[in-house]
């Protein structure tokens, strides 16, 4: 198909799509409607489980199986990236040049790095109480670590990033989630049933299984995203194709 034909075809179809979708929107309850049957039940269930953050209760307790699937996707994507961005037979790695970093940048990075890591841990730990949780905290931890790349250089980042361990931690986090679900079966309930003591409402230990699963997710996401970024960085900075003569380099 020529480019013009393709775009014309798309526009013809898009007009139909747009008209039908707009017609469908007129049938929706108006924006801000008060009737949400599932939501009402979910809030009641979360309070019953003594989980102050209802979203966490839905994510890690009521609809925990969705989250198990979601974490498996992340796990699969990390494995997939390891496979797709592995070093091919005809590639070799080059040594990245040590980059020069402005002292002010280095200072900023050195200050920000611990702050970011602490923030990440805090957000993971308080997932069942306040906004945040394993996923958000994990991503912040992972991106925070890469401040080392900004502040120092690629080799420093490589030193503080034990990939082999993180790779296993990613798998272990995903496995812990799936295995914690078995606790419910062992206790005579259903898979992923929240069988731990629920604790006091509003406390760090409240919510039963929720903080535990949350922590497992935090470990998995943090480790997984670091591995993911590591393989992309590795390709962008280190891997050389045979014909490649450019020096590239880090920093």
């Amino acid at each position, binding site marked *: 198909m020529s480019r013009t034909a393709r775009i014309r075809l798309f526009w013809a179809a898009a007009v139909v799509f747009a008209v039908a979708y707009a017609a469908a929107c007129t049938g929706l309850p108006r924006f*801000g409607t008060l009737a949400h049957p599932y939501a009402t039940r979910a809030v009641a269930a979360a309070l019953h489980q003594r989980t102050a*953050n209802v*979203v*966490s209760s839905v994510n890690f307790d009521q609809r925990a199986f969705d989250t198990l699937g979601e974490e498996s996707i992340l796990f699969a994507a990390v494995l997939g990236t390891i496979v797709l961005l592995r070093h091919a037979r*005809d590639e070799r790695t080059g040594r990245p040049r040590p980059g020069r970093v402005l002292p002010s940048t280095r200072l900023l990075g050195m200050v920000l790095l611990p702050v970011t890591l602490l923030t990440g841990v805090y*957000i993971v730990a308080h997932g069942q109480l306040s*906004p*945040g*949780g394993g*996923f*958000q905290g994990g*991503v*912040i931890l992972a*991106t925070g670590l890469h401040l080392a790349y900004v502040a120092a250089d690629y080799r420093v980042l490589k030193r503080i990033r034990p990939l082999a361990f993180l790779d296993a931690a990613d798998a272990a986090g995903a496995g812990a989630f799936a295995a914690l679900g078995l606790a419910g079966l062992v206790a005579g309930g259903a898979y992923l049933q929240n069988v731990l003591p629920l604790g006091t409402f509003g406390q760090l230990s409240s919510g039963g299984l929720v903080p535990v699963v949350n922590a497992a997710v935090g470990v998995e996401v943090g480790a997984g*995203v670091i591995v*993911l*970024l590591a393989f*992309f*960085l590795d*390709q*962008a900075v280190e*891997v050389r*194709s*045979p*014909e*490649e*003569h*450019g020096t*590239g380099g880090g920093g």
Partner: protein
Amino acid sequence: MNGAANGAVDEYLIVVALLLVTVSATAAALTRDPVRQAVLLAMLGLSLAVLFTLLQAPDVALSQLAVGTAVTPLLILLTVRKVRRAPGPRNGRDRRGDGARR
């Protein structure tokens, strides 16, 4: 509880954030250059985070901020960096055309 007037202000803010999201999404889709697109995607992520905060979804806003404004654009930039640095084709097939290096 918020008063009625307060609610109305909130709704205006939501409309503004929605427009911001729509405009940055359209711009990100229309840009041709992947680097500029990465920047626009980060802006889209930021405006989505604002919208989600206004829609009372701080959890999602936080995720969107971490993923949409940081990780995804970063991955795109790394990919572009790799793509721009690599030389011509390896296997000799598909020699013509080089959209990435224009």
